[in-house]
Every structure is written in structure tokens, then in C-alpha cells.
């Protein structure tokens, strides 16, 4: 897994480098699906409403003191902190909770919950905050004017505003001063057919496997099976936003 997970584009490149006649999806390993299109300009098919990407996070498996997911996210998207926690970007964060009545302790990562009815999309004046056909909620930084209304509206505090000029951004996540951003559910991986987010990969590598990513619309996917079998909750489920990120044992 690790080899293929690290370098799927290499495989793909060689695959496409030959003559391509067949269109369709090729699965070379669990978690890695290569989409190939019989077209010379190698377009991928793009987001489809046949999928809805989501996550289930098992709070029991989230290990105390571990920040692997946060670090992986920061590396993946070149979120370089400047030692100013109040203005530095945080696409994913860990939260430790204590039940006020029972004292029960739980820990979980929180990021954009990729709602079906995202308040950030409702409030955005310029349609910069939008939801893709496959349920991923994103900010189009080409039209974001930096009004921060979405940050006011998000019930999960999932969004960050870019407070300074940046350089050396990752190709995975172009980002710049004056726009709002948040977890992209690693769309650059999804679009490339890599069915694993950076945070999930890191969590697995550390042996916790608290995060499971997958297609909520595919009844046979692992995530759908887990969600069907076990009880899970949405953060602020009272808002009826139908989040794409669900939590177990919270």
C-alpha cells in the first residue's frame, strides 16, 4: 500500500504513456483507483453526483497527544504556520472533550464537515463558497472577496482566513492572502483517483486508523458498511445540515 499510495501518479503516467484505447476505471490496489479516459488530453471525468465523499471518525481510536493528521494536512497543503496561532490556518484540529456531568473524556479531530446543506455556501455573496457535485465543500479562491461571512456562518469553526502573503504554495492547494479556505477533503487526491485523504493516511500509518474516508453513496463501500452497522453522530446534528463527516463513540 505504502509504495502505491505514495506514488500513484507515476503508475498512472506510465499507464497513460502507452496507447490508451480503453476508458474506465482500473483498480490496482485497495484505495487506489485510476480513472483513465480515451482522450489525448488526459482529462479526468471530474466530480460526479454519483458519489458523495465523506468520513467516519472513531473518537475511541483518536490517541491522546497525537497530531499526525494535523501535521499530514499541513504538509500536504503547505500550510506553513508563522507561530501566530490566532491567525495561522488550521484546516484540521484535534479537540479533547470532557463530559460536564460524567467526566468522560473523548478526543477527536474536527475539520470541515462537508455538509449537504452548508451554511457557508448559503451566505457567500459571490458563490465562491460552493459544493461540488460529489459533496465536497470548497472555496473558489478566484472569486472569494475575503468578506469572511462564511467564517461567521460555519457552525464548526472550520474555516481560516489567510492573514498574510504567501509563497511556495503546494500545487495541491493554491492559496493566497485575503481569501478564506478550509479542508478540501483532499480533492486533488480524489480527482486523481486516490481514495485516501492525507489525514487518514497519516492516522493509519501511526497505527490508530481512527479516520475512514469513502463514498457515502456506495452501499458497498467500507464507510457505508461501518455507518450502517454502528451508531454514529453528526456534530451539531440539531442543525440538520447532514454532514459528510460522522463520528463514532462521541
Amino acid at each position, binding site marked *: 500500500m505504502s509504495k502505491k499510495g505514495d506514488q500513484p501518479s507515476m503508475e498512472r503516467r506510465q499507464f497513460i*504513456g502507452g496507447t490508451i484505447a480503453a476508458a474506465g476505471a482500473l483498480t490496482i490496489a485497495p484505495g487506489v483507483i485510476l480513472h483513465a479516459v480515451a482522450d489525448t488530453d488526459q*482529462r479526468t471525468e*471530474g466530480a460526479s453526483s454519483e458519489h458523495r465523499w465523506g468520513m467516519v471518525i472513531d473518537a475511541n481510536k483518536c490517541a491522546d497527544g497525537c497530531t499526525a493528521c494535523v501535521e499530514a494536512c499541513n504538509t500536504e497543503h503547505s500550510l506553513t504556520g508563522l507561530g501566530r496561532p490566532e491567525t495561522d490556518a488550521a484546516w484540521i484540529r484535534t479537540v479533547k472533550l470532557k463530559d460536564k456531568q460524567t467526566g468522560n473524556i473523548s478526543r477527536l479531530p474536527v475539520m470541515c464537515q462537508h455538509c449537504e446543506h452548508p451554511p457557508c455556501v448559503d451566505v457567500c455573496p459571490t458563490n465562491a463558497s460552493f459544493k461540488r*457535485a460529489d459533496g465536497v465543500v470548497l472555496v473558489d479562491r*478566484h472569486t472569494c472577496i475575503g468578506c469572511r461571512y462564511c467564517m461567521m456562518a460555519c457552525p464548526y469553526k472550520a474555516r481560516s482566513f489567510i492573514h498574510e502573503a504567501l509563497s511556495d504554495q503546494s*500545487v*495541491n492547494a493554491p*492559496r*493566497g492572502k485575503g481569501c478564506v479556505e478550509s479542508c478540501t477533503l483532499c480533492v486533488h487526491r480524489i480527482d*486523481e483517483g486516490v481514495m485516501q485523504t492525507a489525514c487518514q493516511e497519516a492516522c493509519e500509518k501511526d497505527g490508530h486508523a481512527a479516520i475512514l474516508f469513502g463514498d457515502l453513496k456506495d452501499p458497498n463501500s467500507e464507510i457505508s458498511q461501518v455507518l450502517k452497522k454502528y451508531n454514529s453522530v453528526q456534530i451539531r446534528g440539531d442543525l440538520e445540515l447532514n454532514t459528510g463527516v460522522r463520528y463514532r463513540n462521541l
Partner: protein
Amino acid sequence: MRSSLISNRYLIILLAGLLLSAMQAFGESAFVTKGSKAASLDNCVAPTDVMRRNHMDFLKHGRDDTVRDGVRGLEYSLSECIDCHASTGRSGKAMPVDAEGEFCQECHGYVAVSPACFQCHRTTPEKMGNNYGYHKDESFFVESTSQPAGIQRD
């Protein structure tokens, strides 16, 4: 009335002539920075004059397809522009394409149009192994450069 029309016409012809010669001078110049991959290729993903005139439209179309619809591997991709057009400086490091004298800035400085792309997009090729998407298959360049696919990366 008539005379002013005629003199206007002469003026227009004169201006058009000036503009044409200016454009010709501009068009004949080779604006590919030395030491970039582009310098070793015959032309860009489209004929040079087409690219020169329409690159912004190509990129703008592509950006919506990619950001909004998740379509990757487009024929026109900004990161491909940068991979190919960034030159290598004396230190062996890639020069930012929006630096003085570099590929994008050379023309954009001349016409005084700020390339806003680079407020968000990186200006040098990304060499990290672990990046997905955006980069089109490099086999496109294989024939003309006879380099193995995916050199420099991975």
C-alpha cells in the same frame, strides 16, 4: 464635416501602422527564458501566437473546470506552464516565473498587466514527490525532449 472624416481616417491608418509595426517587433522576439524546458521545445501546447493571444482565456476556462467540477489533466494547466517555462538560475534553483526578466513578468511587465495568478499559485515547479493531480502526463514531452517520463519528479 467631410474633411474631418478624411483626416480622421488618415489618423487611424497612421495609428494602425504604428501599432502593427510595434506588434511585429513584439511578435518576432523570442520570449522563452533560457534554461527552461520550453526553450528546448518547438512550440507550446498550441502555436506560439495562439498562446500569446489566448493563454489567459485557456487558463480561465481550465480553472473553472478544475476548481468547480474537479476535472484534472486539462490541456492547458497553469502548473504545466510553470514546470515548462521556469528557468533555472545560477544556483541551480528554479527562478520564479513572475520575477523580473522571467517568462511571465517579461511580457506582463511590458504591458503593465499584473499576473494575478501568483497571488495564490506557486511560481516555481514543485519537486515534491507527494503531489497529486494538476500535472498532466509528461509523456507529452517525451518525443521532443527524449527524456524519460517523469524525470525530475518522484
